[in-house]
Every structure is written in structure tokens, then in C-alpha cells.
């Protein structure tokens, strides 16, 4: 095609002029006498304006450069993928959340799942355990064994670990505030069972900073929470280098209404707080970063916000490690992600609609680059009883995306889209601006202390709810195409009073028959280590072996660290 002669202009300027012409001559007239569907087109969470059309001129305006901004899979800055061959060799690991219950119940369910061919399990605990209390503490009445396993002592875990460890390759433990106690119990239980810790991967979530920010299961003041988290990370790096000492669950910020820029900035700032703390212990960035680079990121229904968020996350991590820390090893520069459709997009009303939502979000995950693993929630997530069908459908959704859509046949197929690259770059830039702000105020711990994170989330929560109530956001089944007289049943996991009572008696019986003097001595050593600034894992290990209880060891640390009471911040006040 011959180019029109005339002054030499860049292709971008050429297109820009053409786009303006199109606007004037074609789109403009088509709008005559009509109004658009929305007064303002904007993305769902960030509320950034969406133009009718994106062209190469937009990439120019954003300063886009293919080599610097996008690059190649498995190479810095990893925007297209951290994996050199994408998902052409292996698909992402397809997972689902395990169930819960008392020690014995969990292992029964775990054994069943291992028999079905799963090789990874997730250990979740009840609110008594995650808040650092024993089952017989009056403050936790009604909570024992409900949200997860009740873990009062090494004895409970010894029972739970009645498992075929030859089939189990990966165990994740979700226990944030009392992490050193929990880690110690797992190590001790493995020892008791004669299991070689090098034979599988233990992944502790160790997510205390997210707890302070939006979840609320914290015990000690933030500086001490960070210190004991660092103890666990350092202990694992030095003693169990094949284990994973943290998982930064950005997917907990999102239900608290963090927008994608806040998700990236807050979770990366949190990662830096951990990295900085471990670097202070004498390790270097290329050693440390590969241990901290575990993230769980979800996507919401805004398709492109989801895809671009995943791409931006990869790029931002890589840039941060390189620019802030001077990391050089690919293992340090590559983020590891587990991706997931968010549960908060699912409705109680017309639950079958959620299957469509999950399919769409799982596709967005795959197109954004699913990461190491994907988890699909159940389509009737609002109902706590997982129906068999829901489990099967959840697994099928991932297989359908993987095998039937073709989206994983090539790597990062949406790259080059004018909209996708513009939005990705805008997210990256905005995330770094926010990160600079957080670093300027002293980092994530300072942001938590002053309530900066919590207030930002509180504002988003209120504003987004208003959007929904005032109809600016349409949610099918809720405020659009809603059935006026729809009767939706919420089923919840019913309290089993007998089960709680049993656990209470069990822990009391344990206290009665153990060597109290050994327990007292071990607890004093825990307190001393807390005072001295020593690594908390070894004294916790010694204490759990005397059958000191979970609550007792947590209390020993309460005696030294004090307790954190920032509920007002958590409520955005």
C-alpha cells in the first residue's frame, strides 16, 4: 500500500489523526439522537474511564516499548509469563480447597482426597487456633472446630497426620498469627511420625501483615508479629530449604475491596517488609526473594482488569526486585502465583449463574497467565456445605478452560492488544506511584500502624457498596434481572456442641497427665527467647514436645509482646 506523501510523521500521529477523523465522521454521526448505555464507561474496581476505541496511538501516549514493557516469556520483565513455555508443557496445577473438622475428621477426608489422586492438601484451623487460644478458653465458646481444625497440642496433629505420606507431596498450613507455634507443631509431628521433611513441601502461609490489614486474626503488636514471621522464614531458609515460608494472599485484600492498584501496591509493600526483615538477618536478596515470591491473586468479573492485573503483577515484582534490591537471579525476579476466580463475585441468588461467572473468571485467569496453580471456588460458595455437584463442576470448569477453549495453546495471546497493553501499563505506573507513597511513609508496617491501608479499604468498601445500591453497577440476580420473591436458603455448617465439648475435655485431660514442670520450664524459655530477640521456632519446638498447648505458648508470647487491639482501624475508623 502506498503511503500518502507529505511531511514525515510517526505512525502514531498518523493513526491519532485518523482516529480523530473516525470520531468526527463515523462514530459521531452514529451517536446523533442516541445516548450511550452508560453515562460514564469505567472499569469495575479502579473506575478508570474506558474509551470507545484504543489504537497504537494510545500505546505511544503511554510510552509503550515492546522490549522493555512486555518482552519474552521466561525473561525479564516476565510480563508475558514467568514460564518459558507458558502452559504448553504442563497446565497449571488444578486445585480445590479441602474440607475441615477435628483432627481425626480432617485426616479421613484427606485420605479420601489422596486416594482420588490429589497430591496437595490445605490445613485450615478454627478461629480459636488462628487467634491463639485453646479450645477450653471461654472466649472461643462456639468456635471450636468450626472454621477448621482445632489444634490444641501436638497430640491433635499426631492424630491428623495418620496419612499416606507417600502420596502427599504438598501441604499448606494456614495459620498466621501463631505461626511459630504452628510450624513447631508440624515439625514435631513429622518427627514423631518418622517422616523425612525433605520428601515433600510444607508451605506455611505466615500472612500476619494481611491479617493486620483486613482479616483481623492478629495477636501481638505489628512489630512483634513481623518479628516472629521473620523467625519462621529464616528458620525454614536455613533448615528446610525445600519448604515455602510464606504466601502473600493478595486474594484476601480483594474481598476487602482493594482495587487492582491497591492489591499490587499493598501486597508488594508487604512482601518488601518481609524481605527487608530477612535481609537484616544476614541473608542476601538472591537467596531471600525466591522464598518470598509466593502470591495468591484472584480476578473479579471485570475481565480486562483481571487479565491486566496478573500481567502487571508479574512485571511489578520483577521491576521491584531488580530496581529496589538489585536482584539478579531469575528465581528472585520471577513471581509465583496461584490464581483464582473471586468468591465475592458469586451470588446467593440464582446460583446456577455462578457457573457462568466461574467459567469467565477462570478464562480470565488463564489469559492473564494462570500461574503455578488455579483454584476454583464452588458455585454455591454462599452455602457452606459443598454439594458433590459443585465440587465436580468446579474441577470441570478448569478442564474446560484448559482443553476446550484453546486459550492456553499460545503464550499470553492478549499481548499487543491496544487496550490490554495500555491498561497493564497504567496499572503498573499507578502501582509504583502508590508503592513510592507507602515506602515514603516508612513501609507496610508503618502503613498498618497508622491505619493507612485499613482506611483506604474502608473508603473503597463504602463507595463500591454505594455504586451497587445506586445502580451504577449492575449485578445479575441482585439488582438486575432479580427475581422479586426468590427464596434462597443459606445453609451453614451447624455447631456440633458435642464435638466442641469433646475437644475441651481432651485438652483438659492432656494438661492433667503431662509433666507440668517440663511444660513450665519450656514456657519460660519461650518468654526468654521473646525477650532476647532469639528465633522463636526452636523454643516453640521444645515447648510443643512437652505437650505445652497452643494457647499456653501463645500466652507466653503475649506476656512479653503485649496484645494488639486495633479493631477500630480494621473498621476503617
Amino acid at each position, binding site marked *: 500500500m502506498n503511503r500518502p506523501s507529505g511531511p514525515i510523521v510517526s505512525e502514531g500521529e498518523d493513526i491519532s489523526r485518523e482516529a480523530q477523523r473516525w470520531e468526527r465522521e463515523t462514530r459521531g454521526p452514529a451517536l446523533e439522537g442516541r445516548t450511550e448505555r452508560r453515562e460514564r464507561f469505567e472499569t469495575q474496581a479502579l473506575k478508570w474511564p474506558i474509551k470507545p476505541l484504543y489504537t497504537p496511538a494510545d500505546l505511544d501516549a503511554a510510552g509503550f516499548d515492546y522490549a522493555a514493557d512486555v518482552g519474552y516469556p521466561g525473561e525479564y520483565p516476565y510480563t508475558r509469563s514467568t514460564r518459558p513455555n507458558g502452559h504448553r508443557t504442563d497446565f497449571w496445577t488444578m486445585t480445590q480447597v479441602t474440607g475441615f473438622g477435628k483432627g481425626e475428621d480432617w485426616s479421613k477426608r484427606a485420605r479420601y482426597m489422596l486416594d482420588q489422586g490429589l497430591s496437595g492438601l490445605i490445613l485450615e484451623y478454627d478461629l480459636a487456633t488462628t487467634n491463639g487460644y485453646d479450645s477450653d478458653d471461654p472466649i472461643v465458646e462456639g468456635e471450636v472446630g468450626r472454621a477448621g481444625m482445632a489444634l490444641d497440642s501436638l497430640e491433635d496433629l499426631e492424630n491428623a497426620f495418620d496419612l499416606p505420606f507417600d502420596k502427599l507431596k504438598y501441604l499448606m498450613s494456614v495459620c498466621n498469627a501463631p505461626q511459630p507455634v504452628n510450624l513447631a507443631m508440624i515439625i514435631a509431628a513429622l518427627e514423631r511420625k518418622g517422616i523425612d521433611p525433605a520428601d515433600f513441601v510444607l508451605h506455611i502461609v505466615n500472612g500476619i501483615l494481611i491479617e493486620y490489614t483486613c482479616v483481623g486474626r492478629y495477636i501481638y503488636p505489628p512489630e512483634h508479629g513481623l518479628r516472629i514471621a521473620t523467625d519462621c522464614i529464616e528458620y525454614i531458609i536455613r533448615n528446610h530449604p525445600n519448604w515455602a515460608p510464606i504466601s502473600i494472599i493478595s486474594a484476601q485484600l480483594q474481598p476487602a475491596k482493594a482495587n487492582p492498584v491497591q492489591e499490587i501496591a499493598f501486597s508488594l509493600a508487604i512482601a518488601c517488609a518481609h524481605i527487608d526483615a530477612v535481609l537484616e538477618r544476614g541473608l542476601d536478596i538472591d537467596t531471600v526473594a525466591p522464598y518470598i515470591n509466593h502470591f495468591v491473586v484472584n480476578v473479579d468479573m471485570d475481565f480486562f482488569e483481571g487479565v491486566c492485573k496478573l500481567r502487571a503483577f508479574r512485571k511489578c515484582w520483577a521491576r521491584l526486585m531488580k530496581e529496589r534490591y538489585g536482584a539478579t537471579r531469575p528465581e528472585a525476579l520471577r513471581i509465583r502465583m496461584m490464581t483464582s476466580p473471586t468468591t465475592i463475585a458469586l451470588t446467593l441468588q440464582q446460583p446456577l449463574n455462578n457457573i457462568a461467572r466461574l467459567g469467565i473468571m477462570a478464562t480470565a485467569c488463564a489469559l492473564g497467565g494462570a500461574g503455578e496453580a488455579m483454584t476454583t471456588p464452588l458455585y454455591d460458595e454462599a452455602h457452606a456445605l459443598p454439594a458433590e455437584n459443585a465440587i465436580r463442576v468446579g474441577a470441570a470448569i478448569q478442564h474446560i478452560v484448559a482443553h476446550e477453549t484453546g486459550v492456553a495453546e499460545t503464550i499470553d495471546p492478549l499481548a499487543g492488544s491496544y487496550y490490554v497493553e495500555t491498561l497493564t501499563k497504567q496499572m503498573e505506573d499507578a502501582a509504583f506511584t502508590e508503592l513510592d507513597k507507602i515506602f515514603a511513609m516508612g513501609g507496610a508496617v508503618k502503613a498498618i500502624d*497508622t491505619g493507612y491501608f485499613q482506611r483506604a479499604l474502608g473508603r473503597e468498601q463504602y463507595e463500591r457498596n454505594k455504586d451497587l445500591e445506586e445502580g451504577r453497577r449492575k449485578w445479575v440476580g441482585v439488582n438486575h434481572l432479580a427475581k422479586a420473591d426468590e427464596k434462597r436458603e443459606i445453609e451453614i455448617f451447624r455447631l456440633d456442641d458435642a464435638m466442641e465439648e469433646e475437644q475441651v475435655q481432651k485438652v483438659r485431660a492432656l494438661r492433667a497427665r503431662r509433666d507440668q514442670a517440663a511444660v513450665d520450664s519450656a514456657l519460660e524459655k519461650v518468654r526468654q527467647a521473646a525477650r532476647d530477640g532469639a528465633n522463636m521456632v526452636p523454643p516453640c519446638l521444645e515447648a510443643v514436645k512437652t505437650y505445652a498447648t497452643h494457647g499456653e505458648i501463645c500466652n507466653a508470647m503475649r506476656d512479653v*509482646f*503485649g496484645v494488639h*487491639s*486495633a479493631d*477500630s482501624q480494621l*473498621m476503617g*475508623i
Partner: protein
Amino acid sequence: MAARSSGEPNDIARRLLDGEIAAGARAIRWLDDRDPRCATLLSAIYAHTGKAQIVGVTGPPGAGKSTLTDMLVSEWRGRGKRVAVIAVDPSSPFTGGAILGDRVRMARHSVDPGVFIRSLGTRGQAGGLSRSTHDAALVFDAMGYDIVVVETVGVGQDEIDVVNLAHTTIIVAVPGLGDEIQAVKAGIMEAGDIFVVNKADRDGYDATHRQMELILHLRASALPPDAPAVPLLRAVAAKGEGAAEIVDAIATHRVQLGEAGEFARQNSRRAREQVLALVRDGLLSRMIGMAADTVFEAVDTRQIDPHAAAARLLDTLAVRKVAA
């Protein structure tokens, strides 16, 4: 029949003098709402006031005032004192609503019968306190609480009404918030009785402490040499550190005030100011009648100036009094 704010004032007064919490709470509600029953109530309890030490706690947001107050309450309770806390937070100037969240940090005292925590919104009043704060303190005084803590936000120069209300004002500072020292300099450093640097285990504590020492030194140099030193204390409220020293300083201040006759003098000044404020309010509401609208219109149309308008309204009042 709704028992919404039911109660007969003399009955409520009798019950609160007995120490009944629900009655005290109802009394404060009437005072806060400017319910007509509060006049009878106040006259029934006033004779029983004048004993409690009112302790103001102020400082910038983030200083940890509520956590500090929570710590002091524990210390006082350990010494057998009964404590009331009035936590004041700003009401929205647009909607009149308020989020009152200070008691969250004092939750562990919520079932202690010797502790009474009450949250108030400023309800349009400037200066950091509500109109009802002083009267609420009187209710607690009459109920027999030894200490009444008034906790408020004190940014800049404006929110210092608490200094006039309290016998003993504690200024809470915190390391690392640079600008806050500037705000603290602006007037409140002159008026505080006890200074506390909270979160003393933070970076920047030494610098903050030195700065405040310097300012207090300058202040002391303007006073007679035998004037008691203004305590500058440290605390880590999250860990309960510093409570004993602060409570001791508050008790010492109480003794100093007593010895100098200051305690009674302050009560007297406060009462007088309250009477004057009530007279001012009363005058205003009497004047806002039909006469006022005409006068305001005359100002709007520039027939008379504001000073003349005020004189005219005052004359109206005088005329009415004579007529009565």
C-alpha cells in the same frame, strides 16, 4: 408506651447518685439532647459535684490516646479508683452523624462495674468537645467517680477546649510524626500539665523527647523558679509501660492544685464560664423571634449596619424585660 428516653428527672437523679449506670447514661443522654428534663436533673445533682479530678487527654491522631487511656484506666483500677471516660469525636458538619470508635480500644474494661465509658459526638460545636461534655463530667462527678477522663482529638490550635475543661491536661505526642511537633508548639505546649511521648519504643523517640524537653525548658524559664516542673514522661501503651508514672504524675498534680487552691479556683472559673455560656445561649434564643427577622432584613437591604442591628435587638430585650 415508648421508654425511649423515659424517666422522671428526680428519679433518675436519685438513682445516679446511688451509682446506677443506666441512670447516669440516661442523664447524659438528656444533657446531650438538650432535653428539657435536664434542668431539673442538674439542680438535683449539682450539690454533689466538685470532687472528681477531670483529666483531659489530647494529641494528634495516631498518638495512641485511646490505648493510653485504656492503660491508665487499668492502673487506676489497680489502685482502687473508679474511673469514667468521655470520648469525644467529631460529628459530620454535613449530616450531623458521627462514627464514635474510641471505646473499641478500651473494650477490656467494658464489663468492669468501676469503669464507665461514654462516647459523644461534637454535634456542631467547635473546639473539640461537645456542648454536653462538661455536664456529662458533672454527672460522673455526682455518681462518685474519682477520675473523669475526657479524651479528644487535638490537631492544631483549635481543639483545645479540653484544656479549659480539665483540671489536668495530658498532651500525648508520638515519635516520627514530624509535623505534629509543629502543631504541638502552636499554643498547646503552653497549656498542657503533663506531657507523654507514647510509642516510645519507636525510631525517633530520642529526637522527639529532646524537642519537647527544649520547649518545656523555654516555658519553664518564663515562670518563677519555684514553680513545679512539668513532667515529660514516656509510655508504650500497647505494652502497658509507663502507666504508673503517669498516674503518679496526675495524682501529684491533683495535690499541687489542692495546695495552691487552684482546684477550687478552676471549678469556680469553669462554673462561671458555663453560666455565662448558658446566658449567651439563652439570650440568643430569646432574641431569635419575630423582631430578629425584621432586623436581619434591614441589614440585608443595607438600611442599618450589623452593630446597629445588634443594639436594636438588645434594646428589644430590655424593653421586654421592663414590660414583664
